[in-house]
């Protein structure tokens, strides 16, 4: 009897202790939540500021002081950007070049990754080292070379010229190679016994088995290409061939910089990327983790 009582006491004590530790954890959780919330507000404020500014008339933007809400709400800035500039064309140019970069990079990287991972051919190891080495070279360091190369190809001021240098994507090849390496050899052998060719192996076994990684890489490549500024800015001088990122720089008139209009075009430029991110949030995070893991 005494034994059972003491057991009950004991369990009550453990219960209380557990509750106390729970409360402690909760407090820590609260502190962390508040801290992250503050961080998020701090981080998101410029975005909010930018968005709010686009709804202000220009005179209100340049007025001294901080106004967190437009005194006079207007859509005039968006109206101007949409009706008076070539933003529609810039969107299309961005879509074409980013889309082309995405499709070509994914196809090339998957094929290259497959070849290096699965095929046996002379100098395979050297190809692999070359890809690893090319990944050590920062792309901006090559920008002059790219410009000269593209101009020799007579591709300056063409959309193809914008796409060309963006096709160098060693990280994508490396990620594909590693994923293909991890596919058990039995799948390959079973498909070979079934009479599959290398192309069928890649497109019907290896790529579909790694579908998640392909979508993740495609999204991150697309976002990267959409956001790219320096190269499209250098490669194209005709307003009709500009990407949306480059187009932003064209939105002034005789009165000089118009902040609200600039921000309105920036908001419109960021919209597709933001949408892609919101829709494919998990995949984007996965892709960033993967490439960060490799860059790490």
């Amino acid at each position, binding site marked *: 009897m005494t034994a059972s009582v003491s057991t009950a006491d004991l369990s009550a004590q453990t219960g209380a202790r557990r509750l106390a530790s729970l409360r402690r954890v909760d407090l820590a959780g609260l502190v962390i939540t508040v801290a992250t919330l503050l961080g998020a507000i701090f981080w998101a404020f410029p975005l909010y500021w930018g968005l709010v500014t686009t709804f202000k008339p220009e005179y209100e933007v340049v007025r001294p002081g901080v106004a967190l809400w437009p005194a006079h709400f207007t859509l005039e800035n968006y109206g101007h950007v949409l009706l008076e500039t070539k933003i529609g064309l810039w969107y299309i140019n961005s879509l074409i070049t980013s889309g082309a970069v995405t499709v070509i990079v994914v196809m090339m990287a998957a094929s290259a990754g497959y070849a290096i991972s699965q095929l046996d051919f002379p100098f395979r190891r050297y190809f692999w080292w070359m890809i690893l080495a090319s990944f050590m070279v920062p792309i901006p360091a090559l920008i002059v070379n790219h410009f000269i190369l593209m101009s020799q190809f007579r591709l300056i001021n063409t959309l193809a010229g914008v796409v060309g240098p963006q096709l160098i994507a060693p990280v994508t090849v490396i990620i594909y190679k590693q994923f293909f390496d991890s596919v*058990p050899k*039995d*799948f390959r*052998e*079973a*498909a*070979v*016994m*079934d*009479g*599959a*060719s290398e192309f*069928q192996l890649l497109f*019907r*076994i290896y790529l*579909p*088995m790694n*579908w998640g990684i392909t979508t993740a890489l495609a999204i991150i490549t697309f976002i990267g290409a959409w956001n790219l500024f320096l190269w499209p800015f250098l490669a194209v001088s005709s307003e009709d061939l500009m990407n949306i990122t480059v187009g932003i720089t064209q939105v002034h008139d005789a009165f000089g910089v118009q902040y609200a209009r600039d921000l309105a075009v920036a908001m419109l430029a960021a919209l597709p990327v933001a949408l892609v991110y919101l829709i494919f949030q998990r995949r984007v995070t996965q892709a960033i983790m993967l490439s960060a893991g490799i860059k790490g």
Partner: protein
Amino acid sequence: MSAAPVETGDAAAPHVELRRVTKRYGPVTAISDLSLTVDKGSFTALLGPSGCGKSTLLRMIAGLEAITAGQCFIDGVDVSDMPPAQRRIAMVFQSYALYPHMTVRQNIAFSLSVAGQPKKVQNERALEVARILQLEPFLDRRPAELSGGQRQRVAIGRALVRKPEAFLFDEPLSNLDAKLRVQMRFELAKLHADLGTTMVYVTHDQTEAMTLADKIVVLDKGVISQVGSPLELYNAPANKFVAAFIGSPSMNFFGVDIAAISGRTATVVLPGGRTVEIGVTTGAGARSAELGVRPEHLTVVDPRDPAAAFAGKVAIIEHLGSSTILYVETPVGQLVVEGEGDLAAKSGETIGLRLNQNHARLFGVTGATL
């Protein structure tokens, strides 16, 4: 690539034939100068411990491993340099290797699909195979939604749909639990009986080989130890390796002196001083040998029984229901004895063991049966 038919395939002709094949991986020789024939319609098991080269042998027949030297014939055609898909054989992998992103139907029809067969034909054939293997309800499921046994059947279905000349199985049952393994063993045997197609089956499990195969090839370190029917291997092992590998529990071995060999009988002196007569075919002049006796050929008797070859103390008893396994400490070492299910013996008890000398075998110093 020489593709000259050597002989036409009648029922008794070798269907799969390896001629003096060698496989080397760098300096390591996995298979050396091995020749083997598999008869048409037979169920041949390649049996041996892991690392004996049995899987390598199967993969050489499949074309997944290049042959370093020698030739491989399938249905009389030299396929040594042919790619796997052209050899008209199908293989079932240990891991099943079912494509996880495809349904059962797509998995089964994959070979037809890569060959560019019309969708209608693919569907018909997949359905036909699914009917044989009772997979119809699962045709639209993915492998992840299937049980181990169902996955195994899909893997077989994928092989079946190609209507191959021969099936190659690479330890297909080793991923299944014991009960399912017995069931699948039965289904494989039934499939072989129904189809009559040549099957080559790699396993390290002697029970599987014994129950399924009509011919067993025992491999040891890349060399064939013995080829024969299950009972031949069991009753007349060619050497100590086969004797030890076939049969469960394993055969008992202990050293003995040979007093004399006259004709087909050797007079053997057991460690206790008793003499017994054991049948031999060779071994003239041998002075000592190892005596091998299977657990069921040792009988428990009273220790004072004049027929008892040894006395020993029971160390452990295992009751299996239909039989009882005793581990007995004797002057010649530990012996395993298999008795009746209702055998009354106690741990620690001293018992006598009678040797059924008609079933005992003598092995010479090289391990070969005398």
